[in-house]
C-alpha cells in the first residue's frame, strides 16, 4: 500500500535557517569578500549577488582519519596490464588512493558559493544605522500591529473560537431544555410510583397517558440542536497603530567648477550608496536632493545624479535652502532630520563662517546628525577647518570624513553610519 503525497507546495526553503547559520558563521570571510567587491563594482551594480570563496580548510569538520604512511592494501577495478608481483613507481604525491582528488575538479581547495542580492546587501549594510533616530510618532495611515480584540458573534469561519462556541452551545442547550427536563423528571417519578402500586383501570389509563407524555417530552429534548448558528463565537482582531519614526535625509552635493569630473563621480557614488541604504533599511524615509554651485536648487533623483550643470561655489546657499525646506515641510518635532554633504571644501573665503553660523544656529539644533564628506585627495580646504571646530562642539551630531579615492567611499560610509551604542535598534 502506498500513499502519494504532493509536497511541492509546502516547505520550500527548509534549509533557509541552516543557510543563515552558515553565513553567520563565516561572516568574517564574507565581509571581506563583500568589502572588496564593493570597491571593484560600479555603484549602479550594487543590487546583484556576489560569488564568495572560502578556503576549504576553514570550513572543515574534522574527523579522526588515517594519514599517509604505514602499510595498506587497496583494491581497484579496471586492471589492464598489471600482473601479480609487479612493482610500480609511487604516483606523485604518494597518495595510493589515486584519482580521489581529480573528481571534484578545481573546487577542491576552495569552497565557493553565490550570495543572492538580498544577502549581499544585508552584508553590505550590516551594522549600519541612522544615528539618534529617537523621535517617534503615532501616524494614522501606515503602521499597524494586529492585536487580539476579544470575542464577537460574527466573523470569518477561519477565526472561529471553538471553546467559546461550544460553551455557548452548552449553555443554550441547558437553558432551553430546563423546563422540559424538570417536567420529564416529575413524570418519570409519577410513573415509577404508579408502577409500584396495585394496578386498576384508572391507574392504567393514567400510566398510558404518562408513557405517551414521557415519549413526547423525550422527543422534544432531542430536538434541541447540539450546535446552532447563534452559538458561534469568533476571535476578533483589531488593528492598532504603532508609533513610527519618520526621517528625512538631505543630500547636499557640490557641483561647482572646482570639483573635477572625477570628484563629482566620487560624490555621486557616495550618495548612491547612501540612497540605497536608506531605501533598503528605512521604509519611512524621505530623501531631499539639493545640488549647488553659487546657488542651490532642490532637484529630483534623476537630475541629482545625472545633470551636468555647473558654476562657482557658495556652500551656504545649500544650507540656507535646507533650512527653508525644513521650516516649510519638515517640522522638527515630527521628523528625524539628517543631512549628508559632499564637497571639495573649496568655498568663498567669507562664506565658510556663514556656513558655520547657519549650521550652528539653524540646522544642528533641529537635526539628528550631519555628515560632511570632503572629497579632496590633497590637503584640507577652508571649509574643513571651520567644520572641525563645529565637530568638537557637537561630537554626537556632527561628523566629518575625507575621501581620497574610490576605495575610501565604502569605509567612510561605514564609519559615518556605523551603529552607535546609544542608537536604538531599528
Amino acid at each position, binding site marked *: 500500500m502506498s500513499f*502519494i503525497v504532493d509536497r511541492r507546495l509546502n516547505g*520550500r526553503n527548509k534549509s533557509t535557517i541552516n543557510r543563515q*547559520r552558515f553565513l553567520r558563521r563565516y561572516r568574517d570571510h564574507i565581509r571581506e569578500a563583500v568589502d572588496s567587491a564593493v570597491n571593484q563594482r560600479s555603484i549602479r551594480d550594487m543590487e546583484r549577488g556576489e560569488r564568495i570563496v572560502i578556503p576549504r580548510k576553514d570550513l572543515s569538520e574534522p574527523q579522526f582519519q588515517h594519514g599517509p604512511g604505514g602499510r595498506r*592494501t587497496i583494491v581497484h577495478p579496471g586492471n589492464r596490464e*598489471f600482473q601479480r608481483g609487479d612493482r610500480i613507481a609511487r604516483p606523485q604525491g604518494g597518495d595510493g588512493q589515486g584519482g580521489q582528488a581529480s573528481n571534484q575538479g578545481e573546487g577542491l581547495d576552495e569552497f565557493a558559493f553565490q550570495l543572492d542580492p538580498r544577502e549581499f546587501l544585508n552584508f553590505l549594510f550590516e551594522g549600519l544605522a541612522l544615528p539618534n533616530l529617537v523621535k517617534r510618532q503615532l501616524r494614522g495611515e501606515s503602521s499597524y500591529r494586529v492585536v487580539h480584540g476579544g470575542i464577537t458573534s460574527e466573523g470569518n469561519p477561519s477565526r472561529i473560537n471553538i471553546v467559546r462556541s461550544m460553551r455557548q452551545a452548552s449553555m443554550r442547550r441547558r437553558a432551553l431544555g430546563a423546563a422540559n427536563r424538570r417536567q420529564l423528571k416529575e413524570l418519570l417519578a409519577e410513573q415509577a410510583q404508579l408502577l409500584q402500586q396495585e394496578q386498576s383501570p384508572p391507574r392504567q389509563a393514567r400510566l398510558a397517558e404518562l408513557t405517551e407524555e414521557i415519549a413526547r417530552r423525550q422527543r422534544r429534548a432531542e430536538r434541541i440542536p447540539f450546535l446552532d448558528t447563534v452559538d458561534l463565537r469568533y476571535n476578533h482582531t483589531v488593528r492598532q497603530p504603532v508609533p513610527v519614526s519618520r526621517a528625512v535625509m538631505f543630500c547636499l552635493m557640490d557641483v561647482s567648477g572646482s570639483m573635477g569630473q572625477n570628484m563629482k563621480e566620487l560624490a555621486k557614488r557616495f550618495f548612491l550608496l547612501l540612497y540605497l541604504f536608506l531605501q533598503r533599511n528605512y521604509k519611512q524615509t524621505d530623501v531631499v536632493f539639493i545640488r549647488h554651485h553659487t546657488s542651490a536648487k532642490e532637484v529630483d533623483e534623476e537630475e541629482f545624479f545625472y545633470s551636468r550643470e555647473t558654476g562657482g561655489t557658495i556652500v551656504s546657499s545649500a544650507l540656507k535652502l535646507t533650512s527653508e525646506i525644513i521650516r516649510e515641510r519638515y517640522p522638527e518635532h515630527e521628523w528625524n532630520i539628517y543631512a549628508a554633504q559632499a564637497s571639495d571644501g573649496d568655498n568663498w573665503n567669507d562664506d565658510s563662517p556663514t556656513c558655520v553660523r547657519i549650521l550652528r544656529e539653524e540646522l544642528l539644533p533641529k537635526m539628528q546628525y550631519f555628515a560632511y564628506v570632503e572629497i579632496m585627495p590633497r590637503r584640507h580646504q577652508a571649509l574643513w577647518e571651520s567644520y572641525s571646530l563645529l565637530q568638537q562642539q557637537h561630537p554626537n551630531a556632527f561628523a566629518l570624513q575625507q575621501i581620497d579615492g574610490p576605495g575610501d567611499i565604502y569605509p567612510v560610509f561605514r564609519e559615518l553610519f556605523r551603529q552607535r551604542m546609544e542608537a536604538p535598534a531599528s
Partner: protein
Amino acid sequence: MKQRRQPLSTTSEWNFELLQRYDEEIARIAHDVFQLDTYPNQIEVISSEQMMDAYASVGMPVGYHHWSFGKQFVEVENRYRRGQMGLAYEIVINANPCIAYLMEENTMAMQALVIAHACYGHNSFFKGNYLFQTWTDASAIIDYLVFARRYIAQCEERHGVEHVERMLDSCHALMNYGVDRYKRPYPVSAETERLRQQEREDALQQQVSELWKTFPEMQPDIRRRVPIERYPAEPQENLLYFIEKNAPLLEPWQREIVRIVRKMAQYFYPQRQTKVMNEGWASFWHYTLLHELYNEGLVTDGFMFEVLQSHSQVIYQPPFDSPFYNGINPYALGFAMFRDIRRICEAPTAEDRHWFPDIAGSNWRETLTFAMQSFKDESFIQQFLSPAVIRDMKLFAVLDDDTDDHLAIDAIHDEAGYRAVRQLLSEQYNLSISEPNIQVYQADVRGDRSLTLQHIRHDRRPLARDQAADVMRHLYRLWQFDVHLESVQDGRVVERLSIPPPAAEGSA
C-alpha cells in the same frame, strides 16, 4: 509467452493518477511475483529545491538546525547547478511508512525507476536486513527526530544559538565514535523520551558528581581502597557515550545534546555498513521489476530505453586510471554481485559449483533474500564475491607500504588471486579497519581529571595529525580538562598528542 497488455502510458508526462497506477503495478510484481516484504510507502512529490534540502539534511526528514547542513546545501546546490549531479534516486528514509521522494521535473520513466528502486528495493532492505532490524526502529525514528529538533531549539532559546552550535560542532567531530557496536539500543516514543530526558537530567547530574567527589570525608572508604584502579576498567569504544555519562562539567542540557548526536550516529550506523548491499539490492530490484513490467507489455520501448540509460549511468564503474575514478562504485559492485548470485543459482558453471556448493542451483529468490537479510558489506563480500565478478570488474590489489619506495601489485583477477582480492576487498568495507581504532583508555578520576584516548595502530598506519588535533580540541571542549591521545603500536606508545599542548606540563 505471457500475454502482452496495453502500456500504462506512452508519453514521458506523469500525473498523480499515473503514478498511482505504476506504483500499483510495481507493487503487484514486487509482492506477488517476487515476494518482497516491504513497509508501506509514503511517496512524496517534491521540487528540485526541496530535493536539495533533503540531500543537505543527510536524509533526515526533520532535522535540527546546524550550519553544517547549510554548507551541505550550498555544496549540493553548486554541484547541481554545474550539472555534475542528477537528483534522482537516493533519498529514501528508513521509517515506517518508508518515505521516498520523487522530483517533479522527472519523466514518467524516471519516476517509475525511483519507485522501484526506493519504495521496493531500499524499503525491503530496511525491513529485512538484520542490522536495521536490530539497530534501528523504523516506527520510532520520526518521533525521535521531532523530539531532538524541538529539544535543540529549546536549548537555543535558553542558552543561545552559539553555545548550542559549538556543542553540536564538538559532538559532530566525534560522531563516528558515538556508536555501540554490540549493545542493542531500545527505541522509545517521543513522549517517553521527553519524560525520560527529565529523569535523566536529574539522575545523571547526581551520578556524575558522585564520581568526581574528591573530598575524602565525603567518600570515607576511598583511602583504604587500592588506588591504582583504572577508570574505566575496560577501554570504551563509544566516546560520546563515555562523555555523556562521565564528563565532569557538562550541564544537563549539554549531556542531552551529546546523547542526541549519539542517537543519530547509531541510527546511521547500519547504513554506513551496508552501502554496497543496500544500493546493490535496490538496483537489482529496479532492474528486475521494470524488466518484468516490460515483459508484461505494461511499458513501451521508449520507457525502457530511458530506464536503461539511467541505469547504466548509475552502475558505471570507471577504471582506476580514469579521471572520474573515485573508488569503487557501491551501486556497480552491489548490482554485479546480486546479479551474479542469481546467475549462480540459475545457471551455475563448474567453477561456481566448486566455489559456492551451497547456493549453486538453489532457488535464487530464497538465496538472494537470505543474502540480503543476514550480512553486512564486509561479510557479504567475504561470502559471495565470486571469481566471475572479480574477473568482470578486473579487480586488483595494490600494496602501499611506506618502507618501500614502490607500490606492489599483491593480487589480480586470476586463479591465484581470487581469495586474496576477496579478503582484501572485504576488509576495505570493514569500518573497524577503515576507520582508526580509537578508544577511551583512562579518565584520571583521582588526579588531574585528564582524559586519555588510545589509538591502536593497525599496520603502522598513523592518524592524520592536524585533523586529529582539531578533533581533540573539540573533545577538550566537551571534557574541559586536559585530553591526551596516545598512538599505540606493538603495545608501545609511539606518539602522544595533548590538548592543551604540553608546554607547561612536566609530568607526562
